[in-house]
């Protein structure tokens, strides 16, 4: 594999991992391992929003930079890229083969969007039940959770700002809850709200922030911690504002 090709493969590996929600350490380590498998020296640096990789071999060096903006958690992809990079040390692939494998991994989607929407609704319902909700609260939370999931994805093409997305989704959830609170006056709003909010918690960001910080990737740890705090804040703020205006909470 040529130097340029190796750099591209390493970059693609890093991109897939970062987009799918892997820790910074894993992104950097895997890129360097891919380079090492081909006898080159790789130096990778990743941030939650971008990747730099320099590949050195035979007295030449090449650096590629990539901005990564879109992220959607996909654990299957992380596991498969992990397997791919480990396999390289046993069997070297050609550039075409490696890229074909990575493209196939990029397309890996196990569950259709409707199933994920349903499961996000059900997660809300389950957590509403955990927080002292009854059947009515659970049902309302399922509906609200699904609506928030759909709303965030519907807004995505129109808004460049993730924070605004979360804020508006929170407001939408709040408006829905107001309607339900009118229909079911005996409803325990608190369990519904906490259930619906729990589902949207950026648990991936928080856990990754801890892992990043622990690994010494202070910059990424801090920015991911801030990111998750801002997302929780934006969502709950939108929600709480509407509920407060509506006089429910």
């Amino acid at each position, binding site marked *: 594999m040529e130097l340029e090709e190796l750099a591209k493969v390493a970059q693609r590996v890093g991109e897939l991992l970062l987009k799918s929600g892997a820790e910074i350490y894993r992104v950097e380590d895997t890129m360097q391992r891919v380079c090492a498998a081909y006898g080159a020296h790789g130096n990778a640096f990743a941030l939650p929003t971008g990747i730099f990789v320099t590949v050195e071999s035979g007295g030449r060096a090449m650096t590629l930079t990539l901005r990564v903006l879109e992220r959607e958690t996909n654990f299957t992809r992380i596991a498969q890229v992990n397997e791919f990079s480990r396999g390289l040390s046993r069997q070297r692939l050609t550039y075409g083969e490696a890229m074909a494998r990575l493209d196939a991994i990029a397309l890996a989607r196990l569950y259709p969007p409707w199933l*994920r929407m349903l499961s*996000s609704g059900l997660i809300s319902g*389950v957590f509403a039940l955990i927080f002292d909700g009854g059947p009515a609260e659970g049902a309302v939370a399922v509906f609200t959770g699904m609506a928030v999931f759909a709303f965030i994805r519907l807004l995505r093409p129109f808004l460049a700002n993730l924070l605004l997305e979360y804020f508006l989704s929170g407001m939408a959830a709040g408006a829905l809850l107001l309607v339900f609170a009118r229909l079911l006056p005996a409803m325990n709003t608190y369990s519904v709200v906490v259930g619906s909010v729990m589902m949207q918690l950026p*648990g991936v960001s928080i856990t990754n922030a*801890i892992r990043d910080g622990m690994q010494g990737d202070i910059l990424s740890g801090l920015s991911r911690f801030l990111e998750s705090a801002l997302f929780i804040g934006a969502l709950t703020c939108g929600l709480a504002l509407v509920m407060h205006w509506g006089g429910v909470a």
Partner: protein
Amino acid sequence: MLRDVYLCALAFLGCLLVAVLYQSEKRLLIPAGFSGSLGLAVYLTFMRFWGIATLATFAGAVAVTLYAELTARRFRIPATILIIMGIFPVVPGAAAYDTVMALVRGRYKEAGPRGLVTLVLAMSMAFGILLVASAFRAARFLRARRPPR
């Protein structure tokens, strides 16, 4: 006691669904659910005997991370994946919501302590994960360093 079992069953279902939401492989659905109910079970047990939320959160995070680190190798996946899916019931989401709600209502005197509670709980969770994960990393490091016999 019966209520705790009911809650753990719910946590199983919840974390299994989280695995679906995050596009996890089908073979990991049951382990994800199990680690979720394990975390909550440990949390509830500590709450029952000691009644200290920080301690219970810490213990829950330790249990989830232990399970993840011990099984990750068998499933040949990064342990972080299992931690993320199992930690959900232990994350102080309700405390975070209470804080923001107090702020929105303009009850600043109430928001301060609640924010502090959220922060302390989040830190307990973080240190639980950190402690176990670091121990496993150190063990791997030592094993790699040992000269082959």
